[in-house]
C-alpha cells in the first residue's frame, strides 16, 4: 500500500526548504505564512491538504463571516426561546413542543449541478439530508429552490432535465416527500444555475446529537460508503506531478451519489440514536475526513488520534492527502464508547453498512493522523476548523446602482401604452400566466414523490409545504422558500427583506406560526467590491428584518463566485421560513375548493403603484426602479390574522400576492381546482387610488387573497377591523362559471377568462420546451 513517498511530520521538520504547491491549492501567500507560523515548521503534504480545504471560502466563510455575525448579534432573548441549537452546528434545532424538535437547513450545489446536472443535483440532496441526520433527526421532507437561464436557451435545455431527474432520482429513493420549492427562469442564471436544496427533520429532544468528540478513550469510527477518488476538492492540483510524482491520475471533482447507500445510512443512524450508541456524530460533506476529524476534535474536549490506513477505500492507490480531501458521498463519522462498540457493529451488520475504526479521542489537544504508524498530521484541530483567515473585503455601492434605481417602469419606454380596456387587460392576464415564470411547474414537481411518509398535508403548488410530525396530536410544520432576485438586484437590502417577508407570509398563509429562518445566500465574486456590497447589504437587510419579525436565522449556507465569464448572477438570497402547527389539519390550501361556490373573496392589504421589478415589467423586458416597499409590521399583523383564521376555521382558501400581483393570485386560486370567480376592482381602485391595470399587476407586499363562507364574514372582518388591517370584499367564488370574471372601471365593461383556455396556456409552457408532459 505504501508505494509512494510519505511526507511525515519528521520529514517536514527536516526539510523546511521543500516547496509545496500551496498556491495551486487555493491558499494565498499570507495564509500559507500563517500556517507556517501556527505549526512552527512547514506543513506536511497531508496537513497542507487539510488546511487548504478547510480554509477555503466554502468551508471557512472567510469573506462572509464578518457580515454573517449579524445573524447572531441582532437577536433578542424572545427570539431565542425556542432555539435549542443555533448557527454553527450542522443545522439549527428549534423546539416544537410536546418533546419534539425540528431541524432544517438549506444549502447550495450550484457549480456541480452546472458541470454535471444529474449528479450535482442528486448529491446536493444527499449532503443536506446528512446534515439533518447528524443532528439526531429523522429527515421528513425536502424542498428545491431552482433557478435556470432563459427557458429557450440551449444551456437550460441541457441543465434543467438533468437537475430535475437528479433530484427525483436521489430524493425519491430516500423516502422523503418533496413538498415545495421554486422554479425561476432568468438569463442571469445561464451557465450558472442555482440548485439549492432544503431538508427538514424531526427528533425527540433526547435524541439531539452534536458534532463533538468527547470522552478520552472513546473510539472514532467511519461508516457508510467507501472512500474513493471522487469529489476531491482541487484534486487536479493535488494530483499534479509537482506535488508528488507517484500519485494516481487526475480525478473528477464532481461527486457521484448512491441514494440506496444514503437510505440505508439514514435508517442505520436512527437505530444508533434510538439505542443511544453514539456520543457525537458528523456527516462527511465538503472537505471529507479533514472536516469531520478537525471539527469533531475541536468541538470536543481534547484531541483525536487517527490511523488513516484503516479507512476503507474504493481505490487502494489513493494518497493520504487525497483520502483526507475526498468528498465521496454517503459517509458518516461517529464517536462511540468502547462498551458500545459491539452493539454499534451489530447495527452496522444488520443494515449491511461497512465501517472502520479509525482511532480514538485523546486529551492531548492535538489531532494526530498516522499513516502506517508514521505521523503525517500533528495539528491543533481548532486551527484547522475554526481559526481560518477572516477577510473584511472592500465593498462599495456600485456606480450604476443610482442609474438603475431611477430607471422606473413607468418612466421607461416599456411602461408606455399599458393595457386599459377590459379586453386588453384580460389578454395581459393570460399572457402573464403563460410566461415561463408564472407557468405551471407540475412538469417538474410531478417527477418528485410528495406522498411518501403519509404525512404531507400541503405541497407544491400551495403556498407552503406542510408535514405532520406527530400522528396522535397533529403537531406539524409548514415550510416555504422564496427570493425575488429582481428585487434584490434593484436594492439588495430591501430585496433580502422582501425574500424573508414573502417566505414568512407564505408560511402564515398556510396557517403556520413562523419560528425560524434558514438562508442560502447565492452571490457573485466577493473579490468584486460591487458584489461584496450586494452581499453586505443583503445580510444586513435580512438580519434587521429577522429582528423585526422576531424569528432567528438558525443556519444556512453562503455560495459565492456564482459568475461565468465575468457576468455575475443577480444577488439571490433565498430565504426559507419554518413554521409550526399545533394541528396540521387546520392548514389552509391555496385554491378555491369545489364545494366553496358562493364563498366571499377578500383582499387583505393595500395596493400601491409598485410595478418596478414586477413580472409584468419582466414581460415587457424592463428591470429598473425601486422594489416594492417593505412593511414588516404589516406582514406580522397579516400573519397573525391568517394564523388565527386558519386555526379557528374561518377561511377555506388563502393565497399570497407576490410575483404577478392580484392577477396572478386570482388566476392561481382558480387554476388550483378549476373553480372560477367573479370579482370587481371598483372599490379597490377607489379606496387605494390606483387604476385597474395597477390593481391587477402591482406587486405591493403584505397582501393576501382569502375565500371564506358567508357565515364567517362578520367574524373575520371584525378581526381585521380590530387589528386595523385593510380587508376588502372583492367578489365571490363561482364554481359554475368555469371562468374568471373581473369587473372594473374599464373602457368596455368587464373581462372574462375561460379557465380551460387559461389552463391550456398556463400548463403547456414547460412541457412544450422539455419534451411533453410527464403523461
Amino acid at each position, binding site marked *: 500500500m505504501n508505494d509512494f513517498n510519505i511526507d511525515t511530520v519528521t520529514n517536514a521538520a527536516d526539510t523546511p526548504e521543500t516547496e509545496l504547491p500551496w498556491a495551486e491549492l487555493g491558499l494565498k501567500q499570507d495564509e500559507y505564512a500563517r500556517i507556517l507560523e501556527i505549526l512552527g515548521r512547514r506543513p506536511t503534504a497531508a496537513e497542507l491538504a487539510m488546511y487548504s480545504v478547510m480554509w477555503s471560502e466554502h468551508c471557512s466563510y472567510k469573506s462572509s463571516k464578518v457580515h454573517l455575525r449579524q445573524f447572531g448579534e441582532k437577536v433578542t432573548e424572545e427570539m431565542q426561546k425556542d432555539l435549542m441549537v443555533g448557527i454553527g452546528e450542522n443545522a439549527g434545532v428549534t423546539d416544537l413542543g410536546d418533546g419534539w424538535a425540528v431541524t432544517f437547513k438549506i444549502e447550495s450545489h450550484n457549480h456541480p449541478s452546472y458541470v454535471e446536472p444529474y449528479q450535482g443535483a442528486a448529491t446536493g440532496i444527499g449532503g443536506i439530508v446528512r446534515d439533518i441526520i447528524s443532528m439526531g433527526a429523522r429527515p421528513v421532507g425536502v424542498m428545491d429552490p431552482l433557478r435556470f437561464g432563459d427557458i429557450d436557451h440551449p444551456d437550460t435545455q441541457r441543465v434543467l432535465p438533468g437537475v430535475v431527474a437528479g433530484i427525483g432520482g436521489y430524493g425519491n*429513493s430516500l423516502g422523503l416527500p418533496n413538498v415545495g420549492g421554486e422554479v425561476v427562469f432568468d438569463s442571469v442564471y445561464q451557465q450558472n444555475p442555482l440548485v439549492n436544496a432544503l431538508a427538514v427533520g424531526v427528533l425527540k429532544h433526547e435524541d439531539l446529537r452534536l458534532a463533538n468528540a468527547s470522552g478520552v478513550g472513546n473510539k472514532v469510527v467511519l461508516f457508510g460508503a467507501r472512500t474513493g477518488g471522487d469529489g476531491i476538492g482541487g484534486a487536479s492540483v493535488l494530483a499534479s506531478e509537482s506535488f508528488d510524482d507517484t500519485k494516481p491520475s487526475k480525478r473528477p471533482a464532481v461527486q457521484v451519489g448512491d441514494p440506496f447507500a444514503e437510505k440505508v445510512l439514514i435508517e442505520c443512524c436512527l437505530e444508533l440514536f434510538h439505542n443511544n450508541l453514539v456520543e457525537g456524530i458528523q456527516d462527511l460533506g465538503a472537505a471529507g475526513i479533514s472536516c469531520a476529524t478537525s471539527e469533531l476534535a475541536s468541538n470536543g474536549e481534547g484531541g483525536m488520534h487517527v490511523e488513516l490506513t484503516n479507512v476503507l477505500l474504493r481505490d487502494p492507490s489513493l494518497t493520504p492527502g487525497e483520502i483526507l480531501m475526498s468528498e465521496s458521498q454517503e459517509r458518516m463519522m461517529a464517536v462511540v464508547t468502547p462498551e458500545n462498540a459491539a452493539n454499534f457493529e451489530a447495527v452496522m451488520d*444488520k443494515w449491511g453498512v461497512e465501517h472502520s475504526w479509525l482511532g480514538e479521542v485523546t486529551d492531548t489537544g492535538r489531532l494526530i493522523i498516522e499513516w502506517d504508524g508514521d505521523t503525517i498530521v500533528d495539528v491543533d484541530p481548532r486551527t484547522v476548523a475554526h481559526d481560518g483567515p477572516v477577510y473584511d473585503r472592500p465593498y462599495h455601492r456600485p456606480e450604476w446602482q443610482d442609474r438603475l434605481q431611477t430607471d422606473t417602469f413607468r418612466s421607461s419606454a416599456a411602461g408606455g401604452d399599458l393595457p386599459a380596456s377590459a379586453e386588453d387587460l384580460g389578454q395581459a392576464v393570460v399572457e402573464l400566466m403563460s410566461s415561463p415564470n408564472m407557468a405551471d411547474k407540475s412538469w417538474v414537481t*410531478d417527477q418528485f*414523490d410528495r406522498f411518501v411518509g*403519509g*404525512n404531507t398535508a400541503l405541497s407544491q403548488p400551495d403556498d407552503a409545504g406542510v408535514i405532520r410530525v406527530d*400522528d396522535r396530536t397533529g403537531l406539524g410544520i409548514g415550510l416555504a422558500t422564496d427570493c425575488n432576485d429582481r428585487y434584490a438586484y434593484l436594492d439588495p437590502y430591501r430585496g433580502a427583506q422582501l425574500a424573508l417577508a414573502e417566505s414568512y407570509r407564505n408560511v402564515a398563509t398556510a396557517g403556520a406560526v413562523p419560528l425560524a429562518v434558514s438562508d442560502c445566500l447565492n452571490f457573485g465574486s466577493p473579490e468584486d467590491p460591487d458584489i461584496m456590497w450586494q452581499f453586505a447589504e443583503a445580510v444586513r437587510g435580512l438580519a434587521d428584518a429577522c429582528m423585526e419579525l422576531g424569528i432567528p436565522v438558525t443556519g444556512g449556507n453562503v455560495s459565492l463566485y456564482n459568475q461565468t465569464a465575468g457576468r455575475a448572477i443577480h444577488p439571490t438570497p433565498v430565504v426559507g421560513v419554518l413554521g409550526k402547527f399545533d394541528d396540521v389539519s387546520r392548514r389552509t390550501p391555496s385554491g378555491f375548493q369545489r364545494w366553496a361556490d358562493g364563498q366571499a373573496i377578500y383582499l387583505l392589504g393595500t395596493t400601491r403603484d409598485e410595478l418596478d421589478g414586477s413580472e409584468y415589467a419582466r414581460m415587457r423586458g424592463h428591470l429598473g426602479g425601486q422594489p416594492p416597499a417593505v412593511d414588516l409590521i404589516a406582514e406580522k399583523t397579516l400573519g397573525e390574522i391568517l394564523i388565527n383564521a386558519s386555526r379557528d376555521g374561518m377561511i377555506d382558501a388563502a393565497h399570497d400576492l407576490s410575483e404577478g400581483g392580484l392577477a396572478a393570485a386570482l388566476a392561481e386560486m382558480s387554476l388550483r381546482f378549476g373553480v372560477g370567480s367573479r370579482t370587481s376592482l371598483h372599490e379597490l381602485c377607489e379606496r387605494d387610488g390606483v387604476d385597474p391595470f395597477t390593481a391587477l399587476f402591482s406587486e405591493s407586499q403584505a397582501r393576501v387573497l382569502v375565500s371564506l363562507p358567508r357565515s364567517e364574514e362578520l367574524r373575520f372582518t371584525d378581526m381585521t377591523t380590530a387589528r386595523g388591517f385593510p380587508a376588502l370584499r372583492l367578489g365571490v367564488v363561482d364554481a359554475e362559471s368555469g371562468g374568471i370574471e373581473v369587473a372594473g372601471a374599464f373602457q368596455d365593461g368587464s373581462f372574462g377568462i375561460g379557465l380551460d383556455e387559461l389552463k391550456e396556456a398556463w400548463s403547456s409552457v414547460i412541457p412544450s420546451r422539455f419534451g411533453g408532459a410527464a*403523461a
Partner: protein
Amino acid sequence: MSADTPLIGDHTMPETAPLTDARIGVVTFPGTLDDRDAARAVRLGGGTPVSLWHADDSLHEVDAVILPGGFSYGDYLRAGAIARFAPVMNTIIVEAEATTASPLPVLGICNGFQILTEAHLLPGSMIKNDHLKFICRDQVLRVENTGTAWTSQFTQDELITVPMKNQDGQYVVDDATLSTLEDQGRVVFRYVGESPNGSRNDIAGVTNERGNVVGLMPHPEHAVEAGYGPNDATGLREGTDGLTIFTSVVSSLTGGNA
C-alpha cells in the same frame, strides 16, 4: 413519523390495542420506503401491523403479508430482482402457493408488485414508463375483480383515486398470458383516462389464479387518511379510497361479511 411507529425490525406490539386479531406483516428490504405508511394503513384498516425483516425467514405468525413500495437494493438491477431472493421471500412464496384451503394473502405495492413478478407469484413484468420519467400524480383506477382477499369490499367496476409514483411502472406481458389474464378476470385494477405509463391494456394491478396474491403499481396506502391522501371531489387531499384494500383483507381474515 409517529411516536408509535416502531423502528424497523422491532416486533413488539404497539401500545394501542388492535381492533381485530388480523396480524398483517409488512416486509422491509434495504431500500424499502413505504413500510411505515403500509403499517399505518393496516392499523387504520383495523388490523395489527407486524414488521417483517428481509433477512428473517420467519413470518412471525402473520395472517397476510404486504410487500411495500420503495427501491429495494436501490433497484440498480431490474426492480425487485435482488429482493426476490431474500430469505423472507422463500417463506412467502411457499405460503402463498400452498395448496391449502386458504393460502397466505399477499399484496405487492409498486416495488412490491415488481418483486412479486420477479418471484413469479404474478405474471408479467415492469419496464420503464413509456415517457421515461418518474411520475407522481393522483390516479383514477377501475376495480375489475372484487373476488380477491384484498378487494372484496369494493363494488364491481368501482372507480377509485389513489396516488401513483414510479419510474418503472409500465406493465408488460406476452400476448398469451395477457389473454389468459383478461379471460380469467385477473386484471384487478385498470388505469382510467390517459395511460400514465404505457402499460399493456392499461393494467395497473393483477392477481394470481387463486386470488390470494395481488400486485398493483399505484399506492393505496397513501389514500387511507383524510387530509393526507389524493385530491378528490370532496377536496384537497381528502381521498381515502385505498383504505378499502386494507379493510377488505382484515374482513376476509376475520370472517367478516365481505
